[in-house]
């Protein structure tokens, strides 16, 4: 009985950066055989930090090391004939090819749906692009900042005092790419399952990062299509309390979604008489009167430490939360007891503790079996397995070795 949920699933990942890499990571971490194809000078992500001591090193990019666990790495020059031949050989037996090349980059590499479908009719090809493969913006370029703006998310972030003088904001990091990668993994694995459940052929899947972002904006789109209101970073939340507040020794996130939670929080604050004012009657009224309510709650919060409020809140079944730092996460007792962080040994023998399983499978657990690949590390092995003649393999793999 295979110990991994996706054992036997053969995936080829190409492109650059985060979105395709995260989609393939989700599958690799659950046991899929993922081959990451890089160009001769490597995935550009290798040159993006963080790096130890801030010193760029293509084998030590922290983000690359996280996004490419459990994958084998191959270097192929897909703009050359023999590079393409090798790619076809690998794709011939794959279940999925997933990439985030632009349409132009696909063409330069002769990676086309018609050709691949003829080569391997059961193959699913997932194309991730900023705006999709059709429509007036299909040739447009973007990264996380641009996609978060085009998808309507930045418009909702930021603001605060004289907020209209400050730009709409992007969330930290690569959120649009990560969510697009997760959606791409869903659509891809769905299509693969469809071959078995419903005898569907291999398919070409078109994923637009703009559409992914637009599809997770909470209720904000419907503020327009239901309520005729333009929601924005300058507006207020629909229910309160829902805010980052100042405690004695730091900040804490205070949230009451249900009415019984508000009642328990009022008790926690010593049932002050202002809590019975009519204008605070329910969560929507509290939102409407937030400018009055906030200072009253802030008064209480400022007299206690973050941990006092957080622990007391937990006991009273309130969904409060500290503003964790990275150090807090690594030192969390709860996460340690659950064994959340996964230690990986890098090529130079050092170890790195990475975020681990997003879900706990009882029979086929997520596992970190292999560190991210060095550039071209598995070119020879993968091409051998694909049945290419040893001479060509040596030539292709050799060329990669000389370069790295």
């Amino acid at each position, binding site marked *: 009985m295979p110990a991994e949920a996706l054992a036997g699933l053969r995936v080829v990942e190409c492109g650059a950066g985060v979105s395709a890499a995260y989609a393939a990571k989700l599958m690799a971490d659950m046991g899929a055989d993922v081959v990451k194809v890089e160009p001769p000078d490597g995935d550009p992500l290798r040159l993006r930090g963080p790096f130890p001591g801030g010193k760029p090193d293509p084998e030590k990019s922290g983000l690359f090391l996280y996004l490419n666990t459990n994958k084998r790495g191959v270097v192929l020059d897909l703009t050359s004939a023999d590079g393409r031949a090798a790619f076809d050989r690998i794709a011939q037996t794959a279940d999925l090819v997933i990439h985030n090349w632009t349409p132009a980059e696909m063409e330069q590499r002769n990676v086309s749906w018609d050709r691949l479908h003829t080569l391997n009719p059961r193959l699913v090809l997932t194309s991730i692009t900023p705006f*999709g493969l059709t429509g007036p913006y299909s040739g447009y370029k973007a990264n996380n900042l641009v996609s978060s703006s085009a998808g309507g998310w930045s418009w909702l972030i930021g603001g605060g005092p004289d907020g209209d003088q400050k730009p709409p904001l992007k969330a930290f990091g690569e959120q649009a790419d990560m969510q697009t990668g997760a959606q791409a993994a869903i659509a891809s694995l769905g299509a693969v399952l469809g071959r078995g459940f419903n005898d569907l052929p291999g398919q070409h899947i078109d994923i637009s990062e703009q559409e992914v972002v637009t599809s997770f904006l*909470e209720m904000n789109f419907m503020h327009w299509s*239901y309520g005729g209101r333009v929601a924005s970073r300058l507006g207020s939340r629909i229910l309160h309390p829902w805010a980052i507040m100042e405690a004695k020794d730091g900040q804490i996130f205070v949230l009451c979604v249900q009415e019984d939670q508000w009642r328990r929080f009022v008790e926690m604050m010593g049932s002050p008489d202002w809590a019975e004012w009519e204008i605070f009657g329910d969560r929507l009224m509290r939102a409407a009167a937030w400018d009055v309510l906030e200072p009253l709650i802030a008064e209480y919060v400022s007299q206690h430490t973050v941990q006092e409020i957080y622990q007391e809140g937990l006991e009273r079944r309130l969904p409060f939360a500290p503003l964790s730092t990275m150090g807090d996460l690594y030192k969390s007792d709860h996460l340690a007891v659950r064994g959340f962080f996964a230690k990986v040994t890098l090529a130079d023998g050092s170890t790195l503790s990475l975020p681990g399983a997003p879900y706990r499978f009882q029979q086929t657990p997520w596992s970190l079996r292999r560190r991210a690949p060095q550039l071209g590390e598995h070119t020879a092995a993968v091409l051998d397995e694909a049945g290419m003649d040893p001479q060509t393999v040596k030539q292709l793999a050799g060329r990669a070795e000389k370069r790295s």
Partner: protein
Amino acid sequence: MAAVKPLAGIRVADFTWVWAGPFATLQLAHLGADVIKIESRSRLDTIRGLPPYADNEAGINRAGYFNQYNQGKRSITLDLSKPEGLEIAHQIAAKSDVVTENFSAGVMDRLGLGYDALKRVKPDIIVVALSGYGSTGPLSKYISYGPAQVPMSGLAGLTGYAGSGASEVGISYGDPNAGVHGAFAVLAALYHRQQTGEGQYVDMSQWEASIGLVAEGLVDYAMNGTQPERSGNRDPQYAPHGTFRCAGQDGWISIAVTNEEEWRSLCTALGAPALASDARFTDNAARKQHEDALERELSSLTAERDRWELTRSLQAAGVPAFTPLSNKELAEDPHLNERDFFVRLQHPDVGVRQHPGIPWRMSDSDSTVHAPAPMMGQHTREVLREVVGLNDARIDALEAAGVL
């Protein structure tokens, strides 16, 4: 276009409510699964009771939030505090491939709907349990929601304008993130079952699912003992990378230059080709060093420009850029509409309302939404007849007894 969706024939008994769980089962419904949402009249789904309501008239079937994330699902109502209600829920679960739930720890077991109970009647059942802290560990008995993951994952502390405080990210981002990872977990479990016939239990913590989103911050801390400073829309590696003022009220454009060609094209498109050869901005390193001066120069050039005209001309010049869109502008976006991304279906109570649809297109299977979100209990009779096999007389009796 084959009408068959990849997961046609797969049934999901969905006990989840609010956003994370329903966002997971929305992906399964989009893929063609028959998602049966088990609702309760005495415990209304929170997002049936929140604005925005259609035309701002409240009603349990008029909430845009609910109607967005429950598209294409069936709804039945059962009183699980009554033995007959529980028995029906048990039968539906036993006839489903997947059960999803986000009650607090132990509730499903107490109801006799826990994994061990269901496994006895359906050995290959897949159960995904979603909670804030997971089902083990010192915090497992406490509650936590989607909004709390933004501060608790560390994302709030990493997000914000340079030199100012931690910032939320405009939405309850922990929910959709847990949703897509939950949906992927179901698909991975289905793949394992497709290969081996084995089902399993999956325990998901919203907090753990969100920590990978700040991997960039975590590996920086693990490698260097520090975490990235809040820096607005700037990028650690590239410049210019930000959101600049345009003409008009609250007008902005996000621009992300990642190579020299894009930098030269940007300067030309802004009518300042000489800027490209300014000593302070000759390459990315120089631009990073003089980023304050760079942003002042660019702002002065964008401030008079129309944000749409500038978006088009920059993209035409191959520069990644887009103006931050509001919900209204998404709804009216020519590209999203031409790609038929929005769903416009007749809903019994709110009529035709625009909703974001499926963020993927498959070449050989239907990628459209066929039904709006259900009215509460709309499918009770249909499901009890079809899935549980009760006749109308029995259903009438159950209804009279207040079980439905």
